[in-house]
């Protein structure tokens, strides 16, 4: 800085040197060091925080690793065709295979050593079909004589025993139940068991298709179980029968969706929601018209999607989406996701029971680990020597992959797959989640079940943060800045200190109290008086201006007093005006509601009544009014001759208001003629906890901050500038607006930025008042969820180092970056303004 400051005495005095005492010098140096250290440690702390956040967040974007493969000969190659399923237990020490001959073998999963081999199912009659429930160990065998035997397969672990005896496999079968006609072999079978009952879908050799279910209900008092058995026969149309024997039959756990598919990819989807009236709703082609042959078909964990693998190496995930040209239930199966292609035909698909991961195994021995939500391939591997994959499994805890290939080799990999669901595109981009109509931005992080697909899009939260900030600034900035201008330029100095400290007291209100008031008092009140609130918004400032004009009517004595220093008169008049405006607003509201909103504001917002014209009018009116007033202010000022202002001003003002209303009406008419309707964008369905309430109350929190800093900036403008301006004949208003305000702009700008930072990071108010709905909707009357509120709500449930935990830290990092960018821009702009105003 070039201006001389008192710290450095001008050279003229240098001749008469006095030595500074060493104590002062020492203290000076110590202070300098301390301050430097303090400043540096602030920077280090902030950087440290940033580094910490980045370190926590980083693993989200690392892929999965499949390592430490062990492979061993398990079965003679010619017997692999007999395998029904093979799997390892949750600790990955034992594995078992069930064979079509009814034999069950148990082996050590690490080296393939055979531990046990037994005949679990009688050979006569031979099982003709088999199904395995995805969870809970349920199995079902169908026989040539038309009977079905349900059973449970389990590994039994004995904690005390030695390593070799630790685990045994156990297969318990219930008595045969006749399902088809005697002698009508069961050719296809699917079996689901849940707590509330079991579902069994059966196809017999003669072409009969049947879904039977057992619903269970327990009486808690007596412990008695009531079972409810029902069967629903399904009809396979003649033209489908002509395709030959179907290859796949699948039912979901709820039992209301059944899919029958042929090798050619033709499928029949049945809807059993109404058990008395089952419908064949559609016949999709599960190879998507490529002419390939289906290699496998399996429900994804959670039964929302069905996965198909075909001879061209494609793997697709299908789920029901509502379509106008959909099946009889209004939906059609859509291949919403296509996973990475294999070079050879897909032989096996296996799904994880923990998350939405799945593996596909192909005829060339390659194994891919995919994630359904993100669609990315997490890991890839190949069995050695290459041989077609016969069966595959993701270990129960999701920490291993086990496959058996056609040459009889078993291979077990260790799997580390901590955060399969997060990629940049699932975190920020639209994702087509299971069962959704199309790609969407959704935040629904967790649930009480394992088969839930976590929806971790940060976009609605970032949007919510900006929305809350925008509406609260919209409310707070005009009030805070004009209050600061009034206090520094017009209010009598005697009252200034008292006023300023009382506004600052507002800032000391804890935000949780504000949030509480907002949610429980203000939200219902605003809902009840919504129209009146808006009318008051318009009437209070207009009334204040009109009051200014009308002051010409005051008796001469009072006028002189008010002009010359009776601030109580100003204050009393303004308070009276506020009360009067509120009353007028309340009285006017029903009338306006009738005229503008067809009598019901909320119904109008929903778009149920009225037209969009009033919305266009209401949006354009303030703009027109302000521009007309600005135009009016540019006309040459009347000569100041010391006489009382005439009533001409008031009339002029009323004329402007009238003209603006008329112009807004014209624009509204034109807009609605063109067909514009802003409802649904800026306005929409009224929700009680909404951005308007948040804006109000957050305004309370940030007005004092903006006010204080802005007032300081205005008060710091040198009086010489004011004197010069007034001396040149400008009015106080002209001086304030054209001289003081421009000079104080850097200060006011930093006031706004401090307010903005506070609003963006504010947690408790939005948490309590905003309804926490993660919606992407600019609607003023809808809720929102901010990054900070989301962290507060969900951190307690996030398991340390889990995916949600890291995503919440990512949210924190986002907040950090937002504040960092805003503050940096603010500082740059402020510096530029400062340089400009310094040059004044």
């Amino acid at each position, binding site marked *: 800085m070039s201006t001389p400051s008192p710290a450095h005495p001008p050279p003229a005095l240098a001749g008469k040197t006095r030595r500074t005492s060493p104590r002062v010098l020492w203290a000076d140096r110590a202070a300098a060091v301390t301050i430097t250290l303090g400043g540096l440690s602030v920077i280090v702390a902030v950087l440290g925080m940033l580094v910490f956040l980045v370190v926590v967040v980083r693993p989200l974007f690392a892929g999965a690793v499949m390592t430490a493969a062990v492979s061993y000969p398990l079965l003679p190659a010619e017997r692999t065709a007999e395998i029904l399923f093979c799997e390892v237990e949750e600790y990955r020490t034992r594995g078992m295979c069930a064979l079509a001959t009814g034999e069950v073998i148990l082996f050590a999963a690490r080296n393939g050593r055979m531990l046990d081999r037994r005949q679990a199912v009688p050979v006569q009659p031979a099982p003709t079909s088999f199904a395995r429930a995805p969870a809970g160990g349920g199995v079902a065998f169908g026989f040539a004589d038309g009977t079905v035997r349900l059973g449970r397969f389990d590994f039994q672990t004995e904690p005390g025993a030695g390593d070799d005896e630790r685990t045994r496999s156990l297969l318990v079968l219930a008595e045969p139940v006749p399902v088809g006609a005697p002698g009508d072999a069961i050719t296809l079978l699917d079996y689901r068991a849940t707590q509330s009952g079991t579902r069994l879908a059966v196809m017999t050799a003669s072409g009969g298709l049947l879904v039977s279910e057992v619903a269970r209900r327990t009486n*808690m008092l007596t412990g008695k179980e009531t079972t409810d058995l029902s069967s629903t026969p399904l009809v396979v149309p003649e033209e489908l029968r002509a395709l030959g024997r179907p290859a796949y039959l699948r039912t979901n756990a709820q039992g209301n969706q059944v899919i029958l598919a042929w090798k050619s990819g033709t499928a029949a989807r049945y809807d059993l929601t109404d058990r008395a009236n089952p419908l064949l709703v559609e016949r999709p082609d599960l190879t998507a018209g490529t002419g390939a042959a289906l290699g496998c078909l399996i429900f994804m964990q959670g039964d929302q999607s069905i996965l198909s693998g075909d001879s061209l190496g494609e793997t697709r995930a299908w789920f029901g989406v509502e379509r106008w040209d959909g099946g009889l239930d209004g939906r059609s199966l859509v291949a919403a996701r296509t996973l990475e292609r294999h070079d050879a035909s897909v032989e096996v698909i296996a799904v994880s029971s*923990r998350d939405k991961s799945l593996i596909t195994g192909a005829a060339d021995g390659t194994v891919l680990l995919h994630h359904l939500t993100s669609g990315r391939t997490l890991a890839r591997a190949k069995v050695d020597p290459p041989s077609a994959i016969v069966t595959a499994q993701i270990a129960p805890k999701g920490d291993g992959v086990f496959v058996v290939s056609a040459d009889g080799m078993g291979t077990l990999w260790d799997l580390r797959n901590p955060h399969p669901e997060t990629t940049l595109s699932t975190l920020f981009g639209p994702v087509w989640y299971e069962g959704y109509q199309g790609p969407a931005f959704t935040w629904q992080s967790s649930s009480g*079940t394992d088969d839930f697909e976590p929806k971790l899009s940060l976009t609605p939260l970032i949007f919510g943060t900006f929305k809350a900030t925008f509406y609260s600034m919209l409310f707070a900035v005009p009030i805070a800045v004009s209050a600061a201008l009034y206090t520094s330029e017009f209010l009598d100095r005697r009252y200034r200190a008292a006023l300023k400290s009382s506004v600052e007291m507002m800032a000391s209100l804890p935000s949780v109290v504000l949030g509480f008031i907002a949610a429980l008092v203000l939200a219902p009140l605003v809902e009840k008086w919504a129209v009146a609130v808006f009318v008051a918004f318009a009437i209070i400032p207009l009334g204040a201006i009109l009051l200014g004009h009308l002051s010409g009517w005051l008796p001469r004595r009072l006028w002189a007093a008010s002009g010359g220093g009776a601030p109580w008169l100003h204050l009393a008049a303004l308070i009276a005006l506020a009360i009067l405006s509120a009353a007028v607003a309340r009285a006017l509201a029903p009338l306006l509601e009738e005229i503008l909103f067809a009598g019901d504001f909320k119904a109008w917002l929903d778009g149920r009544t009225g037209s969009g014209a009033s919305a266009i009018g209401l949006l354009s009116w303030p703009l027109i009014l302000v521009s007309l007033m600005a135009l009016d202010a540019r006309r040459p000022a009347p000569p100041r001759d010391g006489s009382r202002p005439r009533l001409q001003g008031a009339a002029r003002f009323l004329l402007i208001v009238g003209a603006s209303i008329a112009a807004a009406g014209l624009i509204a008419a034109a807009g609605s003629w063109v067909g514009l309707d802003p409802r649904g964008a800026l306005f929409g369905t009224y*929700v009680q906890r909404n951005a308007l309430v948040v804006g109000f109350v957050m305004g309370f929190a940030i007005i004092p901050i903006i006010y204080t800093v802005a007032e300081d900036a205005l008060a710091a403008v040198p009086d010489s500038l004011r004197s010069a301006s007034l001396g040149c004949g400008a009015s106080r208003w002209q001086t304030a607006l054209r001289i003081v305000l421009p000079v104080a702009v850097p200060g006011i700008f930093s006031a706004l930025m401090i307010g903005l930072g506070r609003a963006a990071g504010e947690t408790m108010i939005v948490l309590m008042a905003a309804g926490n709905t993660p919606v992407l909707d600019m609607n003023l009357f809808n*809720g929102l969820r901010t990054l900070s509120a989301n962290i507060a709500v*969900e951190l307690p*449930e996030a398991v340390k180092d889990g995916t949600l935990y890291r995503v919440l830290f990512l949210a924190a990092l986002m907040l950090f970056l937002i504040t960092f960018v805003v503050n940096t821009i603010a500082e740059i702009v402020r510096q530029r303004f400062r340089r400009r105003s310094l040059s004044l």
Partner: protein
Amino acid sequence: MKRILPALILCCLVAGLCMAEAARVDPSIPAYHPVQGISGSLKSVGSDTMNNEMTLWAEGFRRFYPGVKIEIEGKGSSTAPPALTEGTAQFGPMSREMKAEEIDRFEQKQGHKPVAVRTSIDMLAVYVNKDNPLPCLSLQQVDAIFSKTRRGGARKEITTWGDLGLTGEWATHPISLYGRNSASGTYGFFKENALFKGDYKDSVKEQPGSSSVVQGVATDRYGIGYSGIGYSTADVRSVPLSVKPGGECEATMPENAYEGRYPLARFLLLYLNRKPDAPLDPLRAEFLKYVLSREGQEAVVKDGYLPLPPRVLEEERARLDIK
């Protein structure tokens, strides 16, 4: 004061009568007998639904053992597994069962699986404002109101009260949805059983506690929300539910829950870390004994939930090996 007192007494009597009708503790359940030498401190982290229940149990327990310190935190069932896993809490009250993934994490750290104790029964209720005339809802309708995926099979989304057959001023009003945040076991249980594992609409206003849900429905005339039966107040009404469309509507009456007819009845669970083949430490054993005693079950009734039938209590005591 003279005029208020009889009114107060009357109120208490009426409330008492209602309570007595709501649910009763079977007199055959043994009372709690205190033992010597119990001291120490307990911490419980978990369900908000069970928060008051835990508080009542803690108060009752401390009447026998004033030296015992009990700290209770209830932000939601999902906060229980991390707390138990990290060992920061001895008890984890949960209004849903632990997920396999949560059990995995616990097992990884502790070497064995956690133990769940059934403590009481809740009827997860769907609440509407007291002025709402809605007679009944099927689970499918509940799904169509709250869920955007509608896995229950409903063909159309339900957005206004008119879609549910209400007439007059209700017909055109949109339904305003209140629910819990995802940390809640109630959120998870409702999602699993009423939404058929589907997804909530984005417009469900997520409240940090069960009482705020009820509060929201009480102040919002067109609101609907769900929470445990223990949070019911006079300003809201629980809607009878039917399992299938057109099926029998079951009100939130105790016998409906006991006999397995009310579709959203559930056990409220208390999870704890218990080493297999080792007895529980005396402090936790006595606390559980208290919870499963007549006094403990009376506290359940006091909080508005349903006590366990003697058969279940016996089973739990036998399983935990506490007499």
